[in-house]
């Protein structure tokens, strides 16, 4: 019997679980995918927004500014790279200048520190590569960048190190509340019982809410396509460069990532399909065109990958974080669109306060450890650190991914450390294996071999991302030559 079951191991679910792991509680995360961070948390703009964009007085505004302020300590505890590179919104004409003024006022009302408007020339002095057509810009120094799946993995891992259980492949399809206890049933018939349930199912939070008996939510996906560029473009800008926002979102941004790449995107398109993460020729062309408007010199031939993220939007255009109106012992978290990543730490903190009000006993653990031991990052170490690491374990001397300088030792750690990776993409998200410019051409065969060995499975059973995504179909020499 769990005290709390968190449905969904995205950034919100993982941070809620971590927050709960401070207390003497039995907590679990139920995740339908094979890994954490597989929905919106996997593919988004990777921005910790300053908070000037949200309507004053909204839940969003409160959570964003608070979440932003919490990020330094959180990132440090979880050993996740986080950088306050600052945000800059470009104005190209008089109408934009008006919008910048509105954003400035909102920023001030929302309590965003240091937000100001600068002239076009001042903007170019800060960012020499932005367009010569920029006439003014809003600058918010508290804006930052973080890797969203890395943050989620680290939060889930730290929660697990502090006793939280993670059940992957657990898609909640049925729920009953009887005698003060929730029973959650998975698609393959497994059951988990919990006194309290937190619904952090992101893009599917309305469907999960309905399964739990709350039918008054609706979430719809907003597709956003992105282009990720080679490291040689990573220094084109230092701030996150926005264009003026519209009803459809914050516009196409150009931003460095914490890993030194340059990210362009997203497009913004409302669709009903919640699983359609295919990219389109039109979408990618739009990203390229609009990003070039902000930063004309960006080399679009340096693309190393493209992807589509699905934001989880609600018609209310605000976060909903509340005890269920219809069901007992249930907290609903839904409509977590942008700035959800920035707000996640604050949402987690707030959810725990709601649980306390609902009567969950919060007795602090004596041995809670907020710090997570990260997978060593060979590529970021100096010679002495590398020497020491290889002396401890020779596998840290074997480079598997040449482009990103990832060692066999790191891959092995990714397969065993909380939350363990089960597949190639899981290893990639934890170590950057295959994330470089060769797209895994050289390292995939070796990475597959290590995964098979460490998991004790035949190479043919290694998958790209769980389910039916097997990388190999059989052995050579055994093909059917009669077909």
């Amino acid at each position, binding site marked *: 019997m769990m005290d709390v079951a968190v449905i969904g191991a995205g950034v919100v679910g993982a941070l809620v679980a971590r927050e709960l792991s401070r207390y003497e509680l039995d907590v679990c995360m139920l995740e339908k995918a094979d890994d954490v961070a597989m929905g919106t948390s996997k593919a988004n703009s990777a921005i910790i927004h300053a908070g000037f964009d949200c309507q004053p007085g909204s839940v969003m505004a409160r959570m964003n500014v608070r979440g932003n302020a919490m990020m330094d300590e959180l990132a440090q505890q979880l050993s996740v790279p986080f950088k306050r590179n600052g945000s800059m919104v470009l104005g190209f004409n008089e109408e934009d200048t008006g919008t910048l003024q509105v954003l400035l006022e909102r920023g001030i009302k929302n309590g965003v520190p240091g937000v100001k408007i600068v002239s076009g020339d001042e903007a170019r002095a800060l960012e020499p590569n932005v367009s010569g057509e920029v006439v003014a810009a809003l600058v918010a120094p508290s804006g930052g960048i973080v890797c969203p799946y890395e943050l989620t993995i680290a939060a889930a891992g730290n929660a697990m190190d502090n006793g939280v259980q993670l059940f992957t492949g657990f898609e909640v399809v049925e729920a009953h509340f009887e005698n003060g206890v929730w029973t959650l049933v998975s698609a393959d018939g497994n059951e988990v019982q919990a006194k309290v349930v937190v619904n952090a199912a992101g893009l599917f939070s309305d469907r999960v809410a309905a399964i739990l008996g709350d039918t008054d939510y609706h979430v719809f996906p907003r597709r956003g396509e992105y282009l990720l560029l080679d490291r040689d473009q990573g220094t084109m800008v230092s701030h996150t460069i926005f264009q003026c926002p519209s009803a459809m979102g914050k516009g196409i941004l150009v931003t460095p990532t914490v890993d030194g790449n340059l990210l362009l995107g997203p497009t913004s398109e409302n669709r009903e399909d919640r699983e359609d993460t295919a990219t389109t020729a039109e979408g990618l062309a739009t990203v390229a065109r609009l990003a070039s408007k902000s930063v004309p010199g960006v080399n679009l031939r340096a693309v190393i990958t493209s992807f589509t993220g699905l934001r989880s939007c609600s018609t209310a255009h605000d976060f909903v974080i509340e005890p269920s109106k219809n069901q007992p012992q249930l907290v609903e978290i839904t409509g977590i669109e942008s700035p959800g990543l920035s707000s996640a730490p604050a949402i987690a903190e707030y959810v725990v306060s709601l649980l306390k009000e609902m009567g969950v006993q919060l007795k602090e653990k004596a041995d809670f450890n907020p710090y997570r031991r990260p997978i060593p990052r060979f590529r970021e170490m100096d010679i002495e650190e590398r020497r020491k690491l290889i002396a401890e374990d020779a596998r840290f001397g074997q480079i598997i991914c040449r482009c990103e300088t990832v060692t066999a030792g790191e891959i092995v750690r990714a397969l065993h450390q909380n939350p363990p990776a089960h597949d190639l993409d899981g290893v990639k998200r934890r170590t950057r294996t295959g994330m470089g410019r060769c797209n895994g051409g050289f390292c995939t065969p070796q990475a597959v071999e290590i995964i098979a060995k460490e998991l004790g499975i035949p190479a043919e059973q290694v998958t790209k991302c769980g389910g039916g995504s097997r990388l190999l179909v059989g052995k*050579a*020499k055994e093909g059917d*030559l009669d077909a």
Partner: protein
Amino acid sequence: MSETIRELTCIVCPIGCTLKVTMDDGKFVSVTGNTCPRGAKYAETEMTAPRRVLTSTVKVSGGHLPLCPVRTKGDIPKELLFEAMRAVNAVSIPAPVSIGQVVIEDLCGTGVPLIATRDIHSV
């Protein structure tokens, strides 16, 4: 008379000359476009009884690699390629293997041996 002209790409060497072969009633008459005598011979063989070198791998037991690359020491009839593959796939040889070692003496009755093209050491 039913003279026909067929165009071929010579595969004897990487130059890949375009050959024009004149045939009469299924019989080879002449070739142009070749830059060496081997090309002329290729054209004739290709039009009458084409032959290919087969390269593949065979299973190895107890070696530092699971497979050893092999090739036919000379060309074999093209129509036998898949039959030859069946024979190649059925073979498993023990390590150590040395380069040039004969793996199959006479591949599918062609009289052409299959040889290993690298060393494999025992583990």
